[in-house]
């Protein structure tokens, strides 16, 4: 993906239009945002009930509250929606108009991703603030952890976007790319820091979670912000996160090229 001067300007203009367009779907946005609020609350309720007045693996109720409230924002920022936005475009032959413009259509997916998130963030923030006031989490944040968090979050969002795009691109070959996506969703649920913070996973599973990419799209930035990692874990985490990012970028490029070859062979 070569970055041309006009590509950035184009992506920006596209994002602006997408944002305007997004406001047409207030109800859908509201429902998605509601889901984004509700599901972490469910995990929190479960862990809160288990922890009670004590702790689970060193995490008290207020720690779980901090984790899942951060989760709420992080999972929103890193959400991959390409299977819904980009996949259908490929499937329904809507890619052609975009292929006729001197800009890689992956930018269309990116613009839609950013516009969705910026608009629905407006809905999420007030709810989030309300929840913080009610739940009184203990955020053990430092200036350093906040700074590293921003880096981890941006990389997580990029990585997640590339993963989402890869699965969406499977639509070039199969009408069942959703089934593959479900597998990713399932693995993220278990290993990404969703059903439980990765530090609570049993040893072997925890190693798996550390090695695989799911955590780097979700749990890792939360752990960074809340100072749950020692220096060694932090360093390893960033190395692996960047490694997965590069791998994902290469995969997207390869799959995109193969997909376009397929598309222009079977008939756009």
């Amino acid at each position, binding site marked *: 993906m070569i970055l041309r001067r006009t590509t950035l300007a184009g992506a920006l203009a596209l994002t602006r239009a997408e944002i305007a367009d997004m406001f047409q779907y207030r109800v859908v946005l509201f429902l998605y945002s509601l889901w984004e609020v509700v599901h972490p609350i469910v995990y929190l309720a479960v862990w809160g009930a288990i922890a009670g007045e004590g702790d689970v693996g060193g995490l008290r109720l207020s720690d779980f509250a901090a984790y899942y409230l951060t989760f709420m924002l992080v999972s929103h920022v890193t959400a991959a929606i390409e299977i819904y936005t980009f996949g259908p475009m490929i499937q329904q032959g809507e890619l052609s108009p975009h292929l006729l413009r*001197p800009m890689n259509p992956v930018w269309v997916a990116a613009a839609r991703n950013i516009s969705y998130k910026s608009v629905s963030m407006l809905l999420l923030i007030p709810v989030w603030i309300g929840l913080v006031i009610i739940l009184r989490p203990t955020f053990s944040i430092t200036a350093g952890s906040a700074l590293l968090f921003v880096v981890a979050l941006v990389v997580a969002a990029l990585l997640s976007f590339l993963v989402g795009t890869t699965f969406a691109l499977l639509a070039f070959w199969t009408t069942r790319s959703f089934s593959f996506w479900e597998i990713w969703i399932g693995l993220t649920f278990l290993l990404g820091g969703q059903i439980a913070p990765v530090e609570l996973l049993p040893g072997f599973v925890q190693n798996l979670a550390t090695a695989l990419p799911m955590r780097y799209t979700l749990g890792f930035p939360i752990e960074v912000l809340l100072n749950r990692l020692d220096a060694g874990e932090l360093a390893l985490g960033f190395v692996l996160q960047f490694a997965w990012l590069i791998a994902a970028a290469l995969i997207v490029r390869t799959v995109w090229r193969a997909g376009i070859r397929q598309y222009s062979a079977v008939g756009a």
Partner: protein
Amino acid sequence: MPPDISVRQLVKHYVVPERAGGLRASFRSVLRRKHRLVRAVDGISFEVERGEVVGFLGPNGAGKTTALKVLSGLLHPTDGQVDVLGYTPWDRRAEYLSRITLIMGQRQQLFWDLPAADSFLVNKAVFGIDDAVYKRTVDLLTELLDLGDLLTKPVRQLSLGERMKVELAAGLLHTPRVLFLDEPTIGLDVTMQQRIREFVTAYNAETGATVLLTSHYMADVKALARRVIVIDQGKLLYDGALAGLVQRYAPHKTITVHLERSVDLPDLNGQAEVLSVEGLQVTVRAGKDDAPEVTGRLLTQLPIADLSVEDPPLEEVIDQVFRGDGP
């Protein structure tokens, strides 16, 4: 100057899975999937010079859209060479895409819920059109297409014809040098078809752009193109002047005579068929080869005030070409 478009032995075959009917057949097809080859474009060659308007004709399924998709870079051909403005289309180089446009009747590149002006701004940025040029182009297109306030209304509120005009404008913002228009008037009412035609003519005159357009409205072709390329089943049947097409494929001529007074018609020897007798005006149809003889007989045997020999309407000729019983 080399031609803008040069196509040599272009072939595009689609491989489609055979869908068999019945449970047993579909079970068998799971085990051993059968494929069928669709020869959408099967070895066509032609050239188009700078500034030409060429009509691309053929019945449904002839391969017109496929050919245009290859030319605009959406499809990779199975075989053959294509050169447009010095580029190989399917490389889809940014410089190439900035010089061409493909406009399809059913294409949907505009944001549905937003005014077209918003979508225009996206294209402006993507194509890197600078402000002054952009303004000039929008003004020109607004004038030629009579866009009025269409650009500020949400696209979903526009009629089909209005939407087509706006789509055309969107596809031309970057002032492409080569236009591929696939059925640009399909589904539009007669007045709107007329408007689009006038626009293409004016645009071609104004900008000197090269235009390759498909349509199955004969009126489009008659009004727009002096040269036509006829394809059927992926093969080139005719490439040349519109008038020549009629000459070559017209199966018969229509002879109309005005009589001085009412008389009985002579025996036409089965060489001609009387189409109508209205007062003193008689219309007969004769095969192309028989026409001179029939005309001669009419002239010598009837008190004739006036006689004219005409080619049949283009629609009939094209129909003849596609039925494959031309010469």
